[in-house]
């Protein structure tokens, strides 16, 4: 169904705008999320300090990422975790498939992890003959619907309860109902059995603590606890940027993440997992494998402007605040990561060949920067990326137009020839139809302000 490409972003957006159901769902969801985040932030008098603190911690880690990663690895390994390094998505998938098949796994339970979506892990696992069960309710819904997530933290946000009910009836034989409690209960009951039968559990990681080798994973549903407690093998896929220096730093991030994401003070569960159990008779997996993923992240370290992309804690607040996302939703971006953060990391992770529209899909309003818990300056990043894209992908017409524009703007004489300037405006704005299809165009004044002043 929706495996749209970012190459056709504008067309995707137009289709999204024509989808009344989607727009209704988006409006409700982004408004609610936005309100809740705002209240949650306001409830902490030191909110701004926390943002500054969190950003400072991330800046420090990223500036010395190799050192902190090595510390994390040392500590995790000393506690019995096995660390694997994956240069790219294919390598990560290969490592995970090998681990799972080595365990003789037939059924794999998964909790929501954007990183596993990024690598298309499910496809690889299925190709290797395993059955993959998504256990997060939102992910379960889109798995049934054969769709991709449309929001970083609420994957099925684009679906109305009616659509979900119809889906459950069709796929699970559920008695038709739109009652949310019933729908949830159906999913709970259906998935219970899968947990019990699973050989391997796969999760993501919210934070990896260098000081102790601990991985921290947060959730509301309990499926992560089940995924990481029941099966004998736990595999955690972790982007290399997820490292934080000290155990005590989790306090700052646990104050920011739930509030920014859902407006909650804390999510229901936080799991702090450090290595494997000490005694065979203890509960929990026998094996813990942490797969560290690069996949383009290390490249982003090359400049302070791009490096801040790696500070992202995947809260989704920028999506909810973005006037563009609010109108078109996540699928139109054609990427695992939509919205403002998606518009900046997708081109950097995937290269600009097919993603060059994304950094332009913004009015640069700055609402995202305002809500970002780690103060990523997304508009600045967008401009930086636009600057990289224009020489390589900008149309010849546009490039020439701006060269000409600059000439005119540097010469008061040329500039004052207002007819010339006026026509140039038309050329830089190549399709005045693009304006006039929805809006009236203000006519160019017969006399410019320069003219009026001269005659004063």
């Amino acid at each position, binding site marked *: 169904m929706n495996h749209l490409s970012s190459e056709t972003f504008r067309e995707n957006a137009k289709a999204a705008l024509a989808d009344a159901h989607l727009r209704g769902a988006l409006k409700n*969801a982004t408004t609610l999320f936005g309100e809740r985040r705002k209240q949650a932030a306001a409830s902490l*008098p*030191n909110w701004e300090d926390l943002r500054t603190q969190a950003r*400072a*911690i991330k*800046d*420090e880690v990223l*500036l*010395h990422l*190799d050192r902190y*990663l*090595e510390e994390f690895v040392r500590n995790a390994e000393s*506690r019995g975790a096995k660390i*694997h*390094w*994956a*240069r790219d998505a294919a*390598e990560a998938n290969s*490592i995970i498939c090998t681990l799972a098949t080595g365990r003789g796994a037939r059924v794999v339970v998964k909790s929501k992890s954007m990183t596993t979506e990024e690598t298309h892990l499910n496809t690889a696992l299925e190709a290797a003959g395993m059955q993959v069960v998504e256990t997060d*309710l*939102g992910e379960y819904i889109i798995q049934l619907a054969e769709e991709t997530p449309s929001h970083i933290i*609420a994957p*099925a946000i684009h679906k*109305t*309860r009616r659509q*979900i009910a119809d889906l459950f009836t069709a796929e699970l034989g559920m008695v038709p109902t739109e009652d*949310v*409690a019933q729908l*949830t*209960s159906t999913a*709970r009951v259906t998935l219970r059995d899968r947990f019990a039968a699973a050989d391997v559990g796969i999760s993501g990681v919210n934070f990896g603590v260098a000081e102790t080798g*601990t991985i921290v994973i947060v959730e*509301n*549903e*309990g499926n992560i*606890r089940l995924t990481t*407690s*029941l099966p004998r093998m736990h595999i955690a896929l972790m982007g*290399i940027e997820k490292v934080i*220096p000290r155990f*005590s730093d989790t*306090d700052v991030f*646990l104050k920011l993440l739930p509030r920014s994401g859902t407006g909650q*003070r*804390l999510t*229901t*569960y936080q799991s*702090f*997992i*450090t290595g494997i*159990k*000490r005694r065979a008779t*203890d*509960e*929990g997996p026998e094996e813990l494998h942490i797969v560290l993923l*690069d996949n383009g992240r*290390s490249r982003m*370290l*090359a400049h*302070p402007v791009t490096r801040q992309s790696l500070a992202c804690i995947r809260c989704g607040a920028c999506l909810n605040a973005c006037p563009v996302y609010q109108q078109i939703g996540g699928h139109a971006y054609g990427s695992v990561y939509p919205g403002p953060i998606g518009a900046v990391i997708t081109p950097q992770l995937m290269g600009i060949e097919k993603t060059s529209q994304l950094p332009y899909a913004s009015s640069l309003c700055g609402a995202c920067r305002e809500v970002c818990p780690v103060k990523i300056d997304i508009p600045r990043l967008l401009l930086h990326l636009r600057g990289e894209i224009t020489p390589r992908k900008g149309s010849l017409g546009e490039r020439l137009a701006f060269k000409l524009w600059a000439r005119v703007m540097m010469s008061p004489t040329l500039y004052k020839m207002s007819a010339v300037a006026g026509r140039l405006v038309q050329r830089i704005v190549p399709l005045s139809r693009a304006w006039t299809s929805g809006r009236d165009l203000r006519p160019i004044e017969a006399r410019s302000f320069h003219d009026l002043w001269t005659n004063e």
Partner: protein
Amino acid sequence: MNNTAREAILGSIRSHLAASAPYDDQHELLVHHEHPVILSKISLVELFKQNVESVNAHCIITTDVTDALRQIIADLKARRIAISDDANVERWLRLTDLEIEKLGVVPDAQDIFRFDVGITTAQAAIAETGTLVLDSAHERHRLVSLVPPVHIAIVAASRIRETLSDALTLLQNTREISPTVTFITGPSRTADIELTLAIGVHGPQELYVIVNEST
């Protein structure tokens, strides 16, 4: 394991950071200052109770754990009870004199799905958020606190800490951080369907917290 990949990634990190050096400021790692939470005049226990209740969980403050347990289990009409390996839990439960059809002490992964209620203690709690801290090094309660639809957790009043940061400090003061520490704040929930709150997804649907003031 796969040293080539390790060296490649670390090498890539280092070379890209080196490229960035001409543009960088150095950032001093800021020491996190705990901003004091200005509590109202109520006690830690009261604050804890308020916050537990604010996340749709029940909180009973008592000096008689047995009595509290008896009431809860009787109200639930629960028959099949799973308990952790904390010796007190079994003792309190037996003292309730309730008829129990099936009692499981740390049931295994297959069996654990066959119980109505799970009873454990918590090693600590956090007042500012209404959170329970379960430390797997001290008690086998991982599945008992997770799988049965109802979780009853008993925590000593003296183990309630004020802030999350206090709890993290406590965890780090042990010899080594245990393999699994779980923070629990309320029963399981989701808002994945139209952002409508639904309580009870994969984790317990109900959470009872008994604060034991007798120790």
